[in-house]
């Protein structure tokens, strides 16, 4: 029984990892209706920037803030320079651009920082909270940060004019343009915000899995599964999806199907959700008039 509880809690901890990256995926989808395959690598690259700043002697929180701002700027620049020219291209062309971004960021980071794993500091205490042996303080703290980001996103989209404008752009670009919203800049802003959310995720994930250029490879797949399960246009759903995938993966892996098939759980979930309920558990069903 103790082992079972432990598996569940350890699943929640990894689920927190998936949830944080899933949030970034949902963020970009909210604005552009596209799934960005390079989201993980962008987060990884930002985390290396934070690592460089901290190693250069900067404190954790200043480095954290600066990295989030930097990631935001990089997101905007990528949208303006790389995505803009293919904006009206077929989806397949855009997917190829995303994959190219993924490979370029991965190789460039390896080239700059080498492939040896690096430790990334945690802002949370070293000793586990309340003396528990199931979850480290960082794992709990990271879940807390993910929830805070979730609330911020919710408030932003629900209660600010800018958030409303961005939602409008995603749903109907033509009409938005007609009412005076600058669609191009909204898209760039969406990219910036998604990159910033990704950077926070990267800095929360790196202390757990170690910092290396390939750290996001597997995580991105699980985050996809999480985002789809919860509903790709629902931030809250993505977070719940993340925890669900983490726990499901651990419990099934340890007791039912064995560790070899853990990744298949995620892939099975992706296919299953797309087949049965494409909008996910908490997503809105989109109906469009043709």
């Amino acid at each position, binding site marked *: 029984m103790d082992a079972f509880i432990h598996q569940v809690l350890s699943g929640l901890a990894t689920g927190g990892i998936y949830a944080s990256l899933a949030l970034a995926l949902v963020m970009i989808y909210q604005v552009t209706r596209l799934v960005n395959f390079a989201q993980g690598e962008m987060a990884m690259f930002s985390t290396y920037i934070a690592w460089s700043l901290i190693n250069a002697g900067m404190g954790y929180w200043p480095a954290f803030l600066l990295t989030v701002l930097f990631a935001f700027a990089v997101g905007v620049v990528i949208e303006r320079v790389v995505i803009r020219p293919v904006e009206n291209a077929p989806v397949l062309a855009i997917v190829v651009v995303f994959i190219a971004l993924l490979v370029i960021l991965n190789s460039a980071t390896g080239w700059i920082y080498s492939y040896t794993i690096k430790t990334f500091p945690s802002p949370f205490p070293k000793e586990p909270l309340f003396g528990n042996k199931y979850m480290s303080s960082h794992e709990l703290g990271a879940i807390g940060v993910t929830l805070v980001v979730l609330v911020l996103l919710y408030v932003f989209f629900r209660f600010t004019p800018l958030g409303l404008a961005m939602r409008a752009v995603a749903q109907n670009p033509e009409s938005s343009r007609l009412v005076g919203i600058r669609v191009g800049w909204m898209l760039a802003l969406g990219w910036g915000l998604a990159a910033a959310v990704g950077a926070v995720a990267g800095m929360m994930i790196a202390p757990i899995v170690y910092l290396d250029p390939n750290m996001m490879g*597997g995580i991105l797949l699980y985050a996809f599964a999480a985002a789809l399960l919860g509903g790709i246009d629902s931030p809250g759903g993505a977070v719940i999806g993340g925890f669900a995938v983490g726990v499901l993966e651990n419990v099934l892996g340890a007791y039912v199907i064995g*560790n070899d098939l853990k990744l298949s759980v995620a892939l099975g979930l992706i296919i299953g959700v797309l087949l049965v309920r494409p909008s996910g558990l908490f997503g809105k069903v989109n109906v469009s008039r043709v």
Partner: protein
Amino acid sequence: MKSKLVPIAALFAAALASPAIPAQKKYDPGASDTEIRIGNTNPYSGPASAYGTIGKTITAYFKMVDDQGGINGRKINFISYDDAYSPPKTVEMVRKLVEQDNVLFVFQTLGTPSNTAIHKYMNMKKVPQLHVATGASKWNDPKNFPWTMGWQPNYQTEARIYAKNILQTKPDVKIGVLYQNDDYGKDYLKGLKDGLGDKAAKAIVAEVSYEVSDPTVDSQIVQLQASGANVFFNVGTPKFAAQAIRKAYDIGWKPVQYLNNVSSSIGAVLTPAGLEKSVGIITTAYLKDYSDAQWANDPAVKRWESFMKKYYPAGDLNDISNMYGYTVARTLEQVLKQCGDNLTRENVMKQAASMKGQYIDTLLPGITITTSDNDYAPIESVQMQRFNGKRWERFGEVMGN
């Protein structure tokens, strides 16, 4: 008729005149008075690109050799292509090396799947596939594959040495194994089982695998703890090995830990895992680790350090792959020195297979390279060592197969 005979006669005349060239100089494609052409593939991109640093070190090493005048007066032309750790690409690149670049032989092609893909081709073409960069045991098969030779100690031998040590030190043993779910991980598992012999079924209480796509191995470590194992055999690549060491410590699981040599680097594994969490871990080694303080003033390691700083400044000094690349390049340098002016493919294999207790000073003391016509496994012994919180402490004898 007459006009055709003249050139033939001229040819004969030239052939008769040729004994002026010293008889001992013999060349196959890729070798000449001025150059030795060597081919290589490495994963400079793709999932295993962390190992690409080996190819870069070797390239840098031969640059240094050339700057110092080459080997027996010949420059080394080391042609290294990226195969992205993808076997079909390895085949393509190696065929290019052999058929278009006309290399004398290929050296240090990296990866078990990649080398498997070119294994038959090299032996059919009778082009040496020398000192391949993989720890599988199948490269030592001179009867069936006389043109292929490994270099490093193989995984199964290493695992058998751990088994021997476990049986000697812990009578009521319960072993939990964490392994990567591929040939590399399974080779270690097989070696462990072979070494335990008929005790294996009872001694191994849990075998759990992980995939390289898993974000962490936390769930696996929780499973191993729940199995009640009192010995932990950690067969992970650096990132996963470090995660496992950290997680075991954090959840209060305190088995005797055996760590595969692949992840024995202090700088790349134990430091990220936490030095205080790594105390007591047992592994084997055959190379001197730069990040280990006991070699801080070792002249051989100092020479390696100055080589790295001059010829490969971008290389990470704490990455033992760079020590590996340097040591294997020096092994080849020795083989080519022995070849003298007889640079045929046959002679390269013959010289590679006649190393008699050759010591290369970046190997641990007591570990030497020995090969023969029916022994194509250059390094067969390793030294056990235990981590004391700061550095590896070697113990026991240098152990072989």
